[in-house]
């Protein structure tokens, strides 16, 4: 199954709304996007996640219509999208710095899309009211954008976009300008809003916690190519590549040697169905626990190690464990008071997920892994 296709675990309704077909984009000699293929289901909350320079904003702008693909096509509802100018697409954008019109008040800003299409005045008034109520900004209807705070401006930008009833809403890092607490609040409001109105959201961010909290599926971009597209649970527990494993959450990357169904990593070994040869495994810190006689893990791997560092984190502690022969593992355990010296640790070998080293090359690749 191709990388960006809708999986049963992913999309809300499963019907394909937008299809990006082998799109590539270059600016002069710089190849920003390389052969991206992706599908978005109607009603789905899909996040484009990546570092700066990964191409996520460019992909968003291609869908909005502010850039043209160098090659490839974009289709929406079985019609060609990339040949249309932005003002003819049933797609609306919430811009990173909101881009509210300073010379219009809130009401006029929100009504803009309807005014431009010569919607009757009575209808405009009603829909503006409805839109402002939806974002809880009805009492600010006559204010000017310059008098509003960042969070308030963001809601207006949202209302202005949604009033046009687009089939797809694009959000370009809309929460990045807000402070941490407001951000968390807006995240849950945004998620609830999307559930309520049922429009597909394409959300761009570099913040992986945000992506995990909001999305039905996450599309991880790296250097212009899709690294993995999967639901948050899947992308966390079954990362396809080392990059994914390290970008989302923390992990231990274990380089081991497989022979006849057994992996050897330093003093440790466990069973695997991986082929013979060198292999890379991702082991999440929270999978490693302090060995306890009463603890029974399926297919447990035990080892001893010396605790070199203990970092208190409020809800949990991070241990740096020296396993001998210059091998270190990081473990996340519940708060247990100061620990020193040698201890026994255990993890289930099912938690050591094989990952590929380099990102898979262009085109589709398998990302689905059965949960073991």
């Amino acid at each position: 199954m191709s990388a960006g296709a809708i999986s049963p675990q992913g999309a809300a309704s499963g019907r394909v709304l937008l299809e990006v077909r082998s799109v590539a984009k270059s600016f002069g000699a710089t190849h920003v996007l390389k052969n991206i293929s992706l599908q978005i289901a109607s009603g789905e909350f899909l996040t484009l996640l990546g570092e700066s320079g990964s191409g996520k904003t460019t992909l968003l702008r291609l869908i909005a219509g502010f850039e043209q693909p160098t090659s490839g096509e974009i289709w929406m509802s079985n019609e060609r999208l990339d040949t249309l100018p932005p003002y003819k697409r049933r797609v609306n954008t919430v811009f990173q710095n909101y881009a509210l019109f300073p010379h219009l008040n809130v009401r006029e800003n929100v009504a803009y899309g309807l005014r431009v299409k010569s919607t009757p005045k009575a209808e405009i008034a009603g829909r503006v009211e409805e839109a402002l109520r939806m974002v809880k900004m009805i009492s600010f209807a006559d204010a000017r954008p310059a008098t509003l705070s960042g969070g308030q401006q963001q809601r207006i930008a949202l209302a202005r976009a949604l009033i046009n009833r687009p089939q797809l809403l694009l959000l370009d890092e809309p929460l990045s300008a807000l402070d941490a607490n407001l951000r968390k609040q807006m995240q849950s409001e945004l998620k609830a809003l999307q559930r309520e109105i049922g429009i597909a959201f394409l959300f761009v961010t570099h913040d992986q916690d945000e992506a995990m909290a909001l999305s039905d599926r996450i599309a991880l971009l790296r250097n212009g190519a899709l690294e993995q597209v999967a639901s948050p649970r899947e992308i966390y527990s079954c990362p396809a590549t080392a990059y994914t494993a390290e970008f989302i959450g923390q992990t231990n990357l274990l380089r081991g040697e497989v022979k006849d169904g057994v992996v050897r990593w330093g003093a440790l070994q466990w069973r695997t169905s991986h082929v013979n040869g060198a292999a890379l495994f991702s082991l999440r810190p929270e999978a490693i626990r302090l060995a306890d006689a009463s603890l029974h893990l399926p297919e447990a791997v035990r080892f001893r190690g010396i605790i070199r560092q203990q970092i208190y984190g409020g809800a949990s502690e991070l241990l740096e464990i020296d396993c001998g022969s210059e091998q270190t593992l990081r473990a996340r355990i519940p708060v247990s008071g100061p620990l020193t010296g040698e201890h026994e640790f255990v993890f289930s070998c099912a938690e050591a997920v094989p990952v590929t080293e380099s990102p898979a090359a262009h085109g589709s690749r398998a990302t689905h892994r059965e949960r073991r």
Partner: protein
Amino acid sequence: MYSRAYKAAISAPPLLWICLFLLLPYALMFAHSFWLVRDGSLIHHWNLQNYRALFTNPLYFEVFLRTARIAASVTLCSLLLGYPLAYYLSFHAGPRKELLYQLVIVPLWVSYLVRGYAWKTILGSDGVLNGFLQYLHVTREPVSFFLYSPFAVVLMLTHIYTPFVFLPIYAALEHIPRPLVEASQDLGADRRATFLRVILPLSIPGLLAGATFAFVLSLGDFLAPLLVGGPSATMIANIVQSLFGAAYDWPLGAAISVCILLITVSLLFATERLEKRWSFK
């Protein structure tokens, strides 16, 4: 952070100079407008005769009207040339924007006299334009109305002030954040609607600044009529100039100058308030 002595030291010299060489001269001009000239000498007798003459003698009104018409034409033409040019540079010029901007600025630095003189040589009866038209056999005889007409004055002043009008408009257009243009298109407005609804309203302060500049300076111009205007294009400043020259009547000239000054200042006030209303910070 700054002591009173420091603040006094930096404010005093320019203040004194301004008072001495700006305020005082304006006051003198104002005073002169209430005085008289009799038998070729200045009489410090306070009266309103000059102003009465200005408002009753139809000659002055006629000249003033012509001046206002010329100034308005210059402003309009400069806007029609300067705005599209600024728009083109700001939104369509791409990487060549900087170079083109410099190219527009260059003529600003070239002497007013040089540019006016150039038009004089082009528009005359045996000027370049007539020669060119005859060479192409478009006309057989020189066309005389090019030079020494209000048309020539408007042409010359438009040429002078188009870059002046361009500058503030370009600055205003550059200040418009591009995401606003994208947002407008995203919401369904095509290029023309985006221009009318977003770009134009946000560029109004620059437009007003440029237009005021062109209008006020054209209103008080006396060199262009002398160079290319001829008697049919005498402007109000020419009358003032001759009153301070051969026609020796400083008080009357001062009165007209005061009027020009008052008109200028009120126009500036008016546009300043308009600009404030149209600037959204």
